[in-house]
């Protein structure tokens, strides 16, 4: 076997190209410092036995050494080798660095940019029927932590999706499959996941009810915002309402919603301010913040001086439901009849008046020969 220096006597030439015009130049210094720097060229380029070598050489097979990774990739969404050679993520084959080396294309802080080369490309996203996730991620709380703070523990693409064996979120084995999402997020957010699993949504998911929301249903998968941020507070109520439709429509009728919708006042009660966020429990549960025994405390968080009578207020009252809210139903009915009755009478009264006045005006003008017209 020949040493690198033998090969580099030709391949160090920066302008060296093969018959097809591709560069076959190698930066010997960089290669020497890379992860594979101790290997001889022919350990990867196995078909080359002697010099001069044939014009065309067979492609390098990384799986010869990296069999596990190759097996994972073969079963993944990136199994098409022509579209996804190892170098598409790991970069130039002659300058591959360990993943904890900042020069590596798969160093945590570089992962989003590496994946984003394809997944931040609109045309590519459209072609494969995928969302263009890179911009969503990079503006998310995870993306900010990673790009602005350089936080190594901030979730990057592979923290949730894995690396070689990435599966579709429709595959039950995928960490992004709906039922697996709490566990995946729980890798970092262990406390929140424990809370969640104790709440109605977590219990339902654990029982196989796939209609219940997991982390990503409320927080989204890639465009995750800081929950205290006004933008998240503004967008969150419709998210709960996409399942709890009747509750959203009754919430819409209340002052909480009215003032919350108008902006600049994000403190107003959103669903989880009263119901809790991760450990949502039925109102009948004594631990629920909306259990009658806890209402004075829960309402009192915003409404200083809230007392037992105050908390009889119904944040989801339905003025159109005679059985549930009879007093409110009849008050609304009376007000509506008053409104309709008053306006109906006076609209007719006024229209008749208008017609009559105009009629008289025209008549008296023509009687005077139109001189006042």
């Amino acid at each position: 076997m020949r040493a690198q220096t033998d090969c580099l006597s030709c391949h160090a030439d920066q302008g060296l190209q093969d018959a097809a015009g591709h560069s076959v130049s190698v930066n010997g210094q960089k290669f020497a410092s890379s992860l594979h720097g101790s290997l001889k060229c022919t350990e990867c380029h196995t078909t080359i036995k002697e010099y001069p070598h044939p014009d065309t050489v067979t492609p390098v097979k990384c799986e010869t050494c990296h069999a596990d990774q190759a097996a994972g990739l073969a079963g993944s969404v990136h199994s098409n080798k022509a579209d996804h050679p190892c170098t598409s993520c790991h970069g130039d084959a002659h300058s591959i660095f360990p993943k904890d080396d900042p020069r590596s294309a798969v160093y945590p802080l570089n992962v989003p940019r590496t994946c984003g080369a394809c997944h931040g490309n609109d045309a590519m996203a459209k072609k494969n029927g995928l969302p263009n996730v890179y911009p969503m991620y990079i503006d998310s709380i995870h993306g900010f932590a990673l790009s602005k703070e350089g936080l190594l523990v901030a979730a990057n693409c592979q923290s949730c999706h894995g690396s070689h064996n990435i599966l579709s979120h429709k595959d039950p084995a995928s960490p992004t499959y709906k039922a697996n999402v709490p566990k995946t997020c729980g890798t970092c957010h262990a406390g929140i996941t424990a809370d969640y699993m104790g709440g109605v949504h977590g219990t339902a998911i654990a029982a196989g009810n796939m209609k219940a929301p997991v982390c990503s249903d409320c927080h989204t998968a890639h465009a995750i915002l800081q929950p205290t941020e006004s933008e998240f507070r503004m967008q969150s109520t419709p998210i709960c309402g996409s399942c709890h439709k009747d509750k959203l429509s009754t919430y819409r009728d209340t002052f909480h919603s009215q003032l919350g919708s108008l902006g600049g006042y994000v403190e107003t009660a959103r669903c989880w301010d009263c119901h809790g966020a991760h450990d949502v429990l039925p109102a009948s549960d004594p631990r629920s913040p909306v259990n009658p025994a806890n209402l004075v405390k829960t309402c009192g968080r915003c409404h200083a001086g809230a007392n037992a009578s105050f908390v009889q207020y119904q944040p989801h009252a339905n003025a159109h439901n005679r059985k549930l809210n009879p007093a409110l139903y009849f008050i609304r009915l009376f007000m509506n009849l008053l409104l309709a009755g008053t306006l109906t009478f006076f609209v007719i009264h006024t229209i008749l008046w208008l017609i009559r006045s105009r009629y008289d005006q025209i008549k008296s003008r023509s009687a005077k020969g139109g001189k006042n017209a």
Partner: protein
Amino acid sequence: MPDLEQATGGSGLQGHKKERFFMRFTRAQRYLHAVLFTTFLGLAATGLPMRFSESYWARKFASGVGGFGAIIFFHKLCAVVLTLAFMVHLKDVFTRGVVNREKGIFWGSNSMVANWKDVKDLFGHLRWFLGLGPKPHFGRFAYWEKFDYWAVFWGMIVIGFSGYAMWFAPFFARFLPGWALNAVLVIHSEEGLLAILFIFSIHFVNTHLRPDSFPMDMVIFTGVESEEGFKKKRPEEYSKLENEGKLAARISEEPATWLVNFTRVVGTIAILIGLVLLALTLSAYFRE
């Protein structure tokens, strides 16, 4: 049948020589109306975005003025000013009627309280609309004006009370049942909507925009009516004063040109704002 076409020029400003003018509203009453319509426009402009908080214009308007915080601040500010004006009016009525024992405040031809003549006038007016009878001779306050007055009076109490109940909910909850806190929003918004729809359509047309007084009846701004207008609009009041020899006591000066021009501009702006709010209300209401 009286001539009607003269009413447009009937404010008598354009060089009618020696035309006499008669006092109809005192300075205090004109100011009361000014405070009333200014705060009412403010309340409507800030209340409607809350009532129709889901509509596009409400959100645009709210964010334009600084969000909900600004909206509710102006709503409360107008509410307090209007409440004070209402109190001043109540005190005025109390002083005149109870302390000074002024006659005719609570009953009679000069009173705001409805009487049998108003019922007859209403039906007479309706008959006249249909060409079935002569136009009634209206007195100092016509039945629709009394309705306006009592509608505002009732609205002040209902909307005011329900509004303050929401503003100071924990305090009101000390003596109101919990469901009343739900009810006050329904009452406040429905009664407010009625007031807005009524004022911006019925009151505007009845008092200002109908052909006889188009584009607006200036009497509430200037306080005086020309003799010709007085005779025509309030024949009963005029003849009563004439018969009792009290007409001279009501003679007043011709309104200053600046006052007429200024209030005409203010009035026009108020009416235009009201009509825009009416259009927005109707569009949001029927889309709900």
